[in-house]
C-alpha cells in the first residue's frame, strides 16, 4: 500500500525520491514532515510581521522549532510497543507532577501552572498530559475487545478526568478541555456507543445552566457574553474581538501586504504574535492566505487519518486518530475564537503562534504518528 502511495508522486522533488525504505529506515513520514515544515515556515513569515519585525523573537521561535522538530524525530524512533508500555508510567508521573503544582508551583498572572524543579527548565506538567492521557486511554482500551464495555468506559473516563480536574483548579480551563478532548477522542474512536454520545450531548445541554452559574468564573462568563455582543464593552473585553474581526475583515481577498497590516502594525490588535496571529495573517495575506493555511492543516489531518487507518494495531489506530483530531481541534478553536465564533480561550494556533512549550508537545505527538506509520507494512 505505501508503494502505491509513492507511485502517485510527481517526479519533481528530487530529495523526496529516496526509496520508501530509506524513509522507513529513519522512521520518518515525509508527507507529514513536509507539511509541518511548510506550516512552520509560513508561521515564521507571519510571526516576523506580527511581532513588529522583531528579529530576536523570530530567532527564538526558530530555535524552538528546531528543538520541537528534533523532539519529533526522536519520538519517532521509539517503537510503538515501547510507547504503549511507557504510557501508563508517563501518566502516573504527570499526575504526580500536577498534584505538586498547587504545592510548589510558580504563580504567574494569578494562575499556578508552572513547575520549577531543580535541574530542569521550568515547565507545565499539563503539557505532558496532552500526550499521556490519550496514550494511556488507548493503551488501556486496546487491551479489551472493541467496542469497550461499560466498566472499561468508566475506567477510561476516570483516567481522563483525574488530570483534567487537577488542571482546572490551576486554573486553566482551556488546557483541561483540550486534554479531555484528546482522551475522549480515543474513547470515541474506540467505538463509544451512540447512546452514550447522545446522552453526553444532552447532559452537556442540561448542565449548561448550573455550569454557567456555579462553575464558571466571572472572567470566563464575560468572555462568552462578549462573544455574542462585543460592542457591549468596546474598550474592555470586547476590544480583542472587535479588533481581530476588523483586522480579518479589512484584509479582504488578497490582504494589505506583508508588514502592511495597519491593525497589527499599529498595535490595535492585542496578542498579535500569540493567540491572535491568524488575524495578522488574514489582514496581510487576505482570504487567500487564510485558505492556504487552512488547506495545509486539512492535509495534515488527512495524512494523520490515513496513518490511523493504516495502522496495524488498535493502539496505533486510536493514538494516531486522537492526536490528529486533537490537532484539528486546536486549529478550529483558535480560528473560531479569533474570528468571533467561540469565546476567547487561550489556545494558540499550532506551529504559527509564538511559544515553544506547546510546540514541543505538538511535534512530539507527530513523532509518535511517524513511529506508528513506520511500523505499518
Amino acid at each position, binding site marked *: *500500500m505505501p508503494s*502505491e*502511495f509513492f507511485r*502517485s*508522486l*510527481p517526479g519533481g*522533488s528530487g530529495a523526496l525520491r529516496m526509496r520508501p525504505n530509506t524513509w522507513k529506515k529513519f522512521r520518518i513520514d515525509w*508527507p507529514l514532515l*513536509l*507539511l509541518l515544515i*511548510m506550516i512552520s515556515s509560513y508561521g515564521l513569515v507571519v510571526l516576523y510581521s506580527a511581532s513588529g519585525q522583531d528579529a530576536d523573537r523570530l530567532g527564538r521561535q526558530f530555535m524552538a522549532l528546531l528543538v520541537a522538530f528534533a523532539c519529533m524525530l526522536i519520538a519517532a524512533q521509539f517503537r510503538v510497543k515501547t510507547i504503549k508500555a511507557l504510557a501508563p508510567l508517563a501518566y502516573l508521573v504527570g499526575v504526580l507532577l500536577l498534584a505538586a503544582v498547587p504545592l510548589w508551583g510558580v504563580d504567574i498572572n494569578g494562575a499556578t501552572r508552572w513547575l520549577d524543579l531543580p535541574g530542569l527548565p521550568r515547565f507545565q506538567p499539563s503539557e505532558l498530559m496532552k500526550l499521556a492521557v490519550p496514550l494511556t486511554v488507548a493503551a488501556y482500551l486496546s487491551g479489551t*475487545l*472493541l*467496542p469497550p464495555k461499560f466498566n472499561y468506559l468508566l475506567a477510561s473516563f476516570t483516567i481522563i478526568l483525574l488530570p483534567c480536574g487537577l488542571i482546572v483548579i490551576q486554573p486553566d480551563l482551556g488546557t483541561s478541555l483540550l486534554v479531555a478532548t484528546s482522551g475522549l477522542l480515543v474513547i*470515541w*474512536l*474506540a*467505538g463509544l456507543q451512540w447512546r452514550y454520545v447522545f446522552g453526553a450531548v444532552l447532559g452537556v445541554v442540561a448542565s449548561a445552566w448550573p455550569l454557567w452559574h456555579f462553575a464558571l468564573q466571572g472572567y470566563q462568563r464575560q468572555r462568552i457574553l462578549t462573544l455574542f455582543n462585543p460592542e457591549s464593552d468596546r474598550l474592555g473585553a470586547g476590544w480583542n474581538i*472587535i*479588533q481581530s*474581526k*476588523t*483586522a480579518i*475583515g*479589512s*484584509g*479582504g*481577498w488578497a490582504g494589505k501586504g506583508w508588514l502592511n497590516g*495597519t*491593525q497589527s502594525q*499599529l*498595535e*490595535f490588535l492585542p496578542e498579535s504574535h500569540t493567540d491572535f496571529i491568524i488575524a495578522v495573517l488574514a489582514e496581510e495575506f*487576505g*482570504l487567500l492566505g*487564510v*485558505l492556504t493555511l*487552512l*488547506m495545509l492543516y*486539512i*492535509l495534515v489531518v*488527512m*495524512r494523520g*487519518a*490515513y496513518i*490511523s*487507518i493504516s495502522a*496495524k*494495531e*488498535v493502539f496505533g*489506530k486510536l493514538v494516531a*486518530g486522537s492526536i490528529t*483530531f486533537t490537532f*484539528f481541534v486546536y486549529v*478550529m478553536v483558535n*480560528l*473560531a475564537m479569533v*474570528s468571533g465564533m467561540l469565546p476567547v480561550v487561550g489556545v494558540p494556533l499550532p506551529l504559527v503562534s509564538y511559544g515553544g512549550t506547546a510546540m514541543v508537545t505538538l511535534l512530539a505527538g507527530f513523532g509518535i504518528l511517524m513511529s506508528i506509520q513506520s511500523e*505499518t*507494512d
Partner: protein
Amino acid sequence: MAHTVLVTCCHDLCKSVGSCPVFEKNQLRDSALEQRVFQQRMIASLVLFFFLAALLAWRYVNLQVFQYEKFATASDRNRIHTLPLEPRRGLIYDRKGVLLAENQPSYSLAVTLERVANLDELLIDLQQLFDIDTRSVEKFRQRLNRRTPYQAVPLKFRLNDDEISRFAVNRYRLDGVEIKAQLVRHYPRGEDFSHVIGYVGRINKSEQEKIFSDEQRRINYAATDHIGKIGLENYYEEILHGVVGSQYVESNAHGRVLRVLQQVDPLPGGDLQLSVDAELQQTVVGLLKGRRGSVVVLDVHTGDVLAMVSAPSFDSNLFVNGISNESYGKLRDSIDLPLFNRSLQGQYPPGSTIKPIIGLAALYHGLITSSSTINDPGWYQLPNDERYHRDWKREGHGDKVDLFQAIEQSCDTFFYDISYRLGIDRIHAFTKQFGLGEKTGIDSFNERSGLLPSRAWKRASRNKPWFPGETLNIGIGQGYMLVTPLQLAVSTAALATRGERIEPSFILSDKTPPKSNKEEVGQKENINALINASENNVSSYGSENQLDDIGVSDYFWDEIHDAMKSVVHGRKGTAQAIGRNIKYKMAGKTGTAQVIGIAQGEEYDADAIAERQRDHALFVGFAPFERPKFAVAVIIENGGSGSATAAPIARKVFDWLMLNDTSNDNKVKPAGRELPVYASNSQLPGLGDVSMNDSVEWVNNAF
C-alpha cells in the same frame, strides 16, 4: 505541491478506509467487528471534520469578502485621525504700522505622561529645578486629566533662557519632559493700549460652552486655547482668529502620531490696522500719569479714534497666560480702578461742557438771539420758588451777559434762564441729536450709554414727575445727566462739523483693499462664512454714519464756535491760560462737575474736602478752528477745575496734533474716501505677506 499531497492523501485515505488490514496479533479478538466499529467512527469523524473545516472557511469568506467594506472602514477609522492646527492670530497695528499686538514664540515645559516612569518623583524634581510653585503643579494635574494620550501637557509657561539651558543640562535624566514652542500673544505697548486692544486669555468654561454650542465655531476653535476677552481682541475675535487647519495623521493604538498623511494649512487671522496713533497714545498716557481720568481724541470727519486713554492702566500681557491671583487681586481691589475703562464705561456729569449745545438749542428755538442779554447777580430763582440757584462766580458776571459771554466765561445764571425757558423736553430732544444718552456704536462690547434724562425716563425709573428745578441742573450739565468721555468727544466733533455726527471706530477708516490671493479661494469662503456670521458685530466697521441734519443755520453755528474760540483765545475765557503762546486757533469749553452736593449757603472749598470728593475737571475742544479736524475730550476725576487741570492737558494734545506731527495733512483726510499714502500695503512695515490682509479685505467686501 500542496495540491499533489492533497490528491495523494485523498486517494490513499479512500483506499485504506475500504480495506483495513486485519489485526493479526490478537486472534481472540473479533477483528471484523473491531474494524467495522473503528471504520464507522473514522468516517463519522472525517465527515464532522470536513463540515467544521468548511464552516471555518465560510466564516473567513464571510468576514473578508462579504463584510470587507465594513471592516475596511473600521480599520481606517482606527488609525486615521484628524488633528486641528491652530491658525496664527491676526496682528494689530497702529495707523502708521506700529505693531501693537503680535505673536511671540514662547517656550513651555511640557510633560508626556506616557513616557514618564514615576510622575510624582519627576514633579518634585522639576519643581526644584525650575522653581515651580505647588499651585502650578495643581493646575498641571487638572490639565493632565483632560489630555489626549501622548499629548505633552504644559507645566510651566514662558521659560527664560536660563531655564531653557538648565533643561538642556538635565535633559538626560528627564524622560518624558520636553520644551514646547508655541505662539503666544504679546502686547509691546501693553500699558498704553490695554483699554483699547484689551487682551486674550485662556478659554474658560463658559466660553468653551458657548463655542461648543455652535458646530462651526467648535470646529474652528479645536486647536485654539486663547480667545479675545475684552477690547478689540474680543470685538474682532472672528476676524483675528482665522480659520483652523487640519492634519490627517496615522496614529497607533496608543494614540501616538506616526506620520502625517495630509495637511490643510490653517488660514491666519486677519490683521487689524487701527486708527489710533501709538505715538499720540503714548503722549497722552504720559499726560495722564498719576491721575485718574480719560482722554479721547477723534477725527471729526471720519470718526477715527486717534487716541483713547483711560488712566490708570495695567499691563495687558499679565492676562495672556493667566494672571496670578495676587496680581489680579491688586488690580481688582485698587481704589483707582485700573481695570475700569473710563473712556467707554465711565459716566460723568458733563458739567459746563454741555453749555454750547444748550446755547445752540436756545438759538435754534428762537428763545434768544446773539444780542439777548440777562442780568446775572450771581444767582437765579425760579418764579414762585425760594431756592437760590447759584452761579459759580459769587458776585455774578454782570448785568449784561449775552450768549457769547455766557459760554466764554461759563455763566451758569444765563443757562439756568435759557434751560428753564427751553424746558426738559426740548433739551432732551436737541441734545440727543449730539449722541448723548446713547451708545456711540464704537467697535466695543463694553460701551455704556450714559444718561440723558427726560420726563419719561424719570417716570419710568423713579416714578416721579419732572420738577422745573431739575431742568436748571441739566442746563449746566449736572443733575441726572451722565456722559462717557467718548460721548463727549463725539458730541464735540458734531459741534465742530456743524452737525455731522460720526460713528467712532478704532479701525482705520480708509484701508486699501488688498489684492486677493487666488490659491486660498476655498478657505476664503470659509472665512467669509465666519464673517457673515458675525456681521452684526462688525457692521459699523470703517463706515461713516451721517447724522440727520440738525437744521441749524450757519449763523448760529458761527455764534457758538466764536464763543468757544473765545474760551481759549479771549481775554476773559475760562481757558485763556492755555491760549497763551499758541500758534493755531482752537475752540473749547471747560467744565467742572460736582461730585458731592453742596448745601444751600455753603461755600465750596476745594482744599478743605478730601481729594476724592473734589470736582471732576473737564475740557472739550476742537482744532484747527478754521477747518476743524480733531476733537478732544478730557475728564480728570477729582481734578478740581476744568480750566486749571483738564484744559492744559487738552492743549498739549492739540499741540501734538497740530505742531509736532508733520504728517498731519496726510494723517486725516478732510472728507470723502481718498486713500492716504501710507495706508497701502507696500509701505507698511511687516505687511509683506499679502494673505494676512485678505480677511480684512473680505470684511470690506462683505459690506
